[in-house]
């Protein structure tokens, strides 16, 4: 029997990880992406490898996903990760009060944590706010977004996956029985239209998932929620510094190369393809970031940018769950051959891919177990070196 052909729309984190997973399970994989790898939300994430601490109080399902995946990614893709841990620091009474729930939450989600005195914390990170009241050491990390994605893409390519970048999905091909059998594409390198046929179509377009689902007459309850981030030109810390409180604006500062990045905000938009970086949000990042690391005020802005999170709209903004969901559109809208994966966050990309590939295998009646937990990824540079 010839290999089943899976077409994945989108080469962000979910797309490349799903390509890797399906290629390992013996699929013939084609990924189409209208830009280059990671040109949308994935490329612009702040790059925090979550340990789950941020979600340990309110969203324990996400928190457990994070700590499990954090541990795995450190093993399989060390080439893209700064594995230096993180601190949650308390600066006022409200933070201290939250600390109790934080300890319980982390314990419930098996997130290792160590409480530090302010002196101990300042010895580790001399640039954090010296007025801190307490600190918790947790296993956060930082990653390079493009290189994380390229690592998965390189491995997928090594196992035979094809990546068609600069190729836009223009419409889905349906047979008379309400089954998706392929996708109409526009090769933007040549401005030529083509048709691609496959056994299953995976919609991995994140915040854009609604647009692709609509092509099949389906819909996905995804709520695109952008946030603004600001990069400053000095590396003040070695660890991710979080505010010990419920998630809010500008409560994370993380190191990346010779920078620190402060994130993020949360707002709603109409046009997904261009979201402006709002001035007042940039100012707010300085304000809030300087509470965690006062020296940021002396640094220069290196980059101001935004990314649009694909939140599953059970709530709105910060209260929405950060977990992911895979939709089999046979079940949701009686459309066969078509699944959507969205929600989630960069840290859980591998788990999202595993779930999606499980759904795909089940739909096609295949018994192929997931192998991505064990396979260390090849050099991300191989994505460019390997033939397509």
């Amino acid at each position: 029997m010839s290999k089943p052909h899976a077409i994945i729309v989108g080469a962000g984190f979910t797309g490349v990880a799903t390509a890797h997973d399906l290629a390992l399970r013996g699929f013939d994989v084609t990924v189409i992406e209208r830009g280059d790898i990671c040109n949308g939300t994935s490329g612009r994430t702040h790059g925090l490898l979550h340990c789950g601490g941020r979600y340990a109080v309110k969203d324990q399902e996400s928190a457990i996903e994070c700590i499990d995946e954090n541990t795995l990614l450190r093993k399989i893709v060390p080439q893209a990760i700064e594995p230096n841990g993180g601190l949650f620091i308390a600066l006022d009474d409200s933070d201290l009060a939250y600390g109790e729930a934080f300890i319980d939450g982390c314990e419930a989600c098996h997130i290792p944590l160590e409480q530090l005195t302010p002196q101990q914390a300042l010895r580790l990170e001399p640039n954090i706010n010296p007025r801190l009241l307490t600190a918790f050491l947790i296993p956060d990390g930082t990653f390079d977004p493009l290189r994380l994605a390229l690592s998965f893409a390189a491995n997928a390519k090594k196992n035979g996956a094809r990546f068609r970048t600069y190729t836009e999905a223009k419409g889905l091909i349906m047979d008379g029985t309400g089954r998706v059998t392929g996708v109409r594409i526009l090769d933007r390198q040549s401005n030529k239209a083509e048709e691609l046929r496959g056994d299953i179509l995976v919609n991995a377009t994140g915040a854009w998932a609604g647009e692709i689902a609509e092509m099949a007459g389906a819909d996905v309850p995804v709520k695109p929620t952008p946030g603004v981030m600001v990069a400053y030109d000095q590396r003040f810390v070695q660890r991710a510094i979080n505010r010990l409180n419920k998630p809010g604006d500008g409560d994370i500062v993380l190191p990346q190369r010779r920078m620190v990045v402060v994130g993020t905000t949360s707002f709603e938009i109409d046009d997904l393809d261009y979201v402006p970086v709002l001035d007042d949000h940039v100012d707010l990042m300085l304000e809030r970031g300087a509470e965690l690391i006062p020296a940021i005020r002396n640094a220069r802005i290196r980059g101001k940018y935004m990314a649009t999170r694909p939140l599953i709209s059970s709530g709105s903004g910060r209260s929405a769950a950060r977990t992911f969901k895979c939709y089999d559109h046979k079940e949701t809208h009686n459309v066969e051959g078509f699944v959507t994966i969205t929600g989630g966050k960069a840290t859980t990309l591998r788990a999202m891919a595993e779930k999606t590939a499980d759904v795909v295998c089940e739909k096609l009646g295949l018994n192929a177990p997931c192998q991505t937990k064990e396979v260390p990824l090849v050099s991300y540079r191989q994505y460019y070196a390997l033939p397509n």
Partner: protein
Amino acid sequence: MSQNKWKITLKIHRQKEAEAPHFDEFALDVDPDEYVLDAVERVWAFMDRTVCFRHACHHSTCGACGMRVNGVEKLTCITYIRDVTQDGGTLKVEPLRNFPVISDLAVDMGSLYSRLDTVGARSVLPVTQAEAEKKPADWPAGDEQYIRLADCIECGLCISACPSAATSSDYLGPAVLAGAQANGLKRNPELLGLVDTEDGLWRCHSAFECTAVCPSFVDPARRIMDLRKQVFVERFSRVFRRS
């Protein structure tokens, strides 16, 4: 960010398959404190959906958005429009030189990436080895446990700006030699055969353009010269070891 808007003309290099390269002009209202990449992205979002360009992180950590802006290599995500044109001015945006053009502004950097792998350029390394301007004694004890992403973001600006790279497709190029230097001959003696060659270290003719355009503090020219010194010392000591 300032309140006043500028009117600028964005001249974008266009090239699709089998099409002769040419420029398309777009009239844009911009904030001078926006980045060049923002302007290019807006052209794609609102004016011409066929424009192809490479970009990902928008804050100088990934190296995808290198282009030539008015003839000079820039990382467009951190290049303020204010710094490269004026109100009523023109911005000419072209793909990097010395790489095959995929389409419009996007180039294929496969040669750079595979050469970086060949010399074993490290993508992450101990923080004490990454920061060149600090002496080992300046690091507090225990800091060597920290790992950080290397300075080089593999953006290819140095390869594009180098006059020697323009005439020799086999030249390893500044980023690759800098990656080899960061690895060190002591740690990797096999590098000697790769870099002590006509198309390695000795193809550099001291134009220092690599260091002038590097957006990420790598200073490839300094590293090339340092590697030459390492090679010289190694060759010299081998003569004595033999005799």
